């Protein structure tokens, strides 16, 4: 292809993408309206707020949690989250003795319906190569110190099957409503590279927010 030629000035990805898009639109293959629609969906609708609702419900409702761990895909679909890159979901539960973390060593597989599109670091060579051989060290770089007695399980996702980590419900969140619990759940806590928020900190920041 011409853009690989060493004698011509480099062709930017923007130019290459525009060439493809305009050609496909002209041929009647690609619908410009559909392009905007799908981009908007992933920029505004599908993201980790979905996963946070799943986690919060599992914390609040033991029956739901049992269903979620037994058949992740079906339990997640109960909340209306399903579809591409979430066709076969497995939920792995963090406990006082086990910490789970997910990766896609081959590419970028990620549970889109519950987490949206992955951050760049998740798709990067350093994360993909290292988390499977030195997970404890990698998690430390994320600011997550897992005690030596806690087992770390690394789940390598693939194109058929995607994992979601169910983080532990934090102390201090007793009696919280599901919507409040969801505010504690971070994206990284569902990948396994982060913790949920501290309820005390969240209450403090919210009260500050309403007072100002």
């Amino acid at each position, binding site marked *: 292809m011409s853009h690989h030629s060493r004698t011509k000035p480099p062709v930017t990805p923007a130019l*290459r993408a525009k060439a493809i898009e305009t050609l*496909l639109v002209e041929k009647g293959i690609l619908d410009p309206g559909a392009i905007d629609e799908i981009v908007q969906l992933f920029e505004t609708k599908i993201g980790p707020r979905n996963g946070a609702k799943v986690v919060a419900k599992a914390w609040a409702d033991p029956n739901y949690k049992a269903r979620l761990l037994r058949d992740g895909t079906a339990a997640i679909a109960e909340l209306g989250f399903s579809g591409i890159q979430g066709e076969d979901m497995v939920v792995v539960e963090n406990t006082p003795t086990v910490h789970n973390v997910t990766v896609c060593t081959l590419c970028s597989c990620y549970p889109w319906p519950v987490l949206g599109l992955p951050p760049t670091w998740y798709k990067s060579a350093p994360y993909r190569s290292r988390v499977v051989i030195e997970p404890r060290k990698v998690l430390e770089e994320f600011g997550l110190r897992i005690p030596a007695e806690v087992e770390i399980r690394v789940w390598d996702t693939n194109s058929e099957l995607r994992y979601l980590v169910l983080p532990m419900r934090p102390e201090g969140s007793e009696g919280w409503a599901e919507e409040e619990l969801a505010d504690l759940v971070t994206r990284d806590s569902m990948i396994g590279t982060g913790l949920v928020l501290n309820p005390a900190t969240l209450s403090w920041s919210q009260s500050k927010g309403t007072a100002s």
Partner: protein
Amino acid sequence: MNSIHDMGGMHGHGPIVRDESEAVFHEAWERSVFATMMLAPGYGLWNADESRYGMERMPPGEYLETPYYVHWLHSIELMLLEKGIITVEELTARIQALSAEEAD
């Protein structure tokens, strides 16, 4: 396939660089590439496995040096050309025309 994409356990890739405030798409062309890749299976152009195979056939050096959505772009170009949906001549001419427009 044993290739550069099979990264689990590889050494030498350095520290993990994170940007906590990053947007879903960084630049406009990423949106275009994402949408094209996502919509194509609906138009019967290719399936997800083919598109992944397209990325895995990227030259290893290029795979390591380019940002993520360039992997997608590479795969899209490869599939469109291989399937004869777009010809090399068409693509080259269009890139030249767009390039000339930009230079004006």
